């Protein structure tokens, strides 16, 4: 799976599952400040990532990814490892 496909899947679940306005989704968007993702949402992100990409994010993983760019990069690397 290439990065473009990962971006497409992630953006789709952010829009559909988290009802985030597509206009605020960008590579630089911050989970907390721009996407309004809170601690409970991070729990659901772990569930949805496992569903779509078949691996489990840890709290430590998430703490290293404050923005979508690093999130896309991390998932792309993980699914192609």
């Amino acid at each position, binding site marked *: 799976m290439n990065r473009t496909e990962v971006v497409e899947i992630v953006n789709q679940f952010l829009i559909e599952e*988290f*009802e985030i306005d597509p206009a605020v989704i960008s590579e630089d968007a911050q989970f907390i400040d721009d996407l*309004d993702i*809170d601690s*409970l*949402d991070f*729990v*659901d992100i*772990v*569930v949805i990532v*496992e569903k779509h990409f078949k691996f*489990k994010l840890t709290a430590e993983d998430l703490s290293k990814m404050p923005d979508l760019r690093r999130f896309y990069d991390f998932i792309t690397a993980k699914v192609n490892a």
Partner: protein
Amino acid sequence: MRRVVITGTGIYSTIGTNLDEVRNSLFVGKSGIGIDPFRKELGFMSPLTGIIAPPDLKQILHRKLRKGVSEQGEYAYMATLEAMAQAGVDLEYFEKNEVGILFGNDSSTTPVIDAYNKIIEKKDTSLVGAGSIFQSMNSTVSMNLSVILKLRGVNFTVSAACASGSHAIGLAHMFISQGMQDMIICGGAQEINAFSMGSFDGIGAFSKRIDQPTKAVRPFDRDRDGLVPSGGAAALIVESYESAQKRGAKILAEVLSYGFSSNGDHLSVPNVSGPQISLERALKMANLSAKDVDYVNAHATSTPVGDSNEAQAIFNVFGGKTPISSTKSMTGHEMWMGGASEIVYSILMMHNDFIAPNINFNNPDEFSAQINIIPQTIHKNLNIILSNSFGFGGTNSSLIIKKG
């Protein structure tokens, strides 16, 4: 003691999803009962159930606020919005004034089953998801509505089986009459999914009259053969008389008293003396005699023993003249919700001058022949009514309300 009044009502039920629809259904004696094919697949002894269309909250409630809302919480949210609109209160009012919430609810099955299945499948609790815990608890309705509405007063759920909603209103009466709260959002909510009713079906309590779903619930009728589970939610804005006066709110009804008792007897089989004590306590607290009551909304669920015993208790207290009907003949048994919804139904009758029928009452039995059951809608001015709610474990609640 301060006077306690009701200024708002809301309903989301199997006979209508707003007050107007429900008033019309009550008037014409419309049944909300049908067949659930899924229950047949699951081997239920009875596939009969109340049929309800779930609301679409996606358009009206933000995802973060929906996350913890269970099936019955969705019904409760819709009913509460309607009650708030009728009472003329909104989020701004709740921000400026301390308002509480007391809701009746006694189960939340689907989220528990979903979490169980996920844990078994994944062997990892972190993959259950964030909403599950907030949907799973009995307090899910009061928990979620208090956050959605930003309530800062008393906040808890009353779990008292099929009397939950009635006790919730009774406790609101206590809090407000004692001056501890000025306004409380009250109600009852009931999930309607098949799994929530599987174990209840398993004890053989449900009607098997599957060839005639709308005739299955026949409280007090000689040929009744069990209840039909149902659900939805009802909500009421209960406040002190002074609070309503200050707001200039229209008073729909006054809660005169809250009678209660426990049978101290059997898990599922009701008796006569427990309900009778509840009825008598309600009358005594309201300083009324039986002849002052214009109508009794019976608990009667259509079970052979329960209806007989309630008929005896009613006869012992009221004699044979007071008009009686069980709206469960139309709605089915709304269980945790019933004690609240039946107050809403009674208020609708009071303000539209009719008594809703006890449909399917064709032939009395030995005990129901002694009381005045109303089989067809009658026009009648109602000033004071009493509503009974009884539940497993022998919990009893009787509310007396007066037209505002």
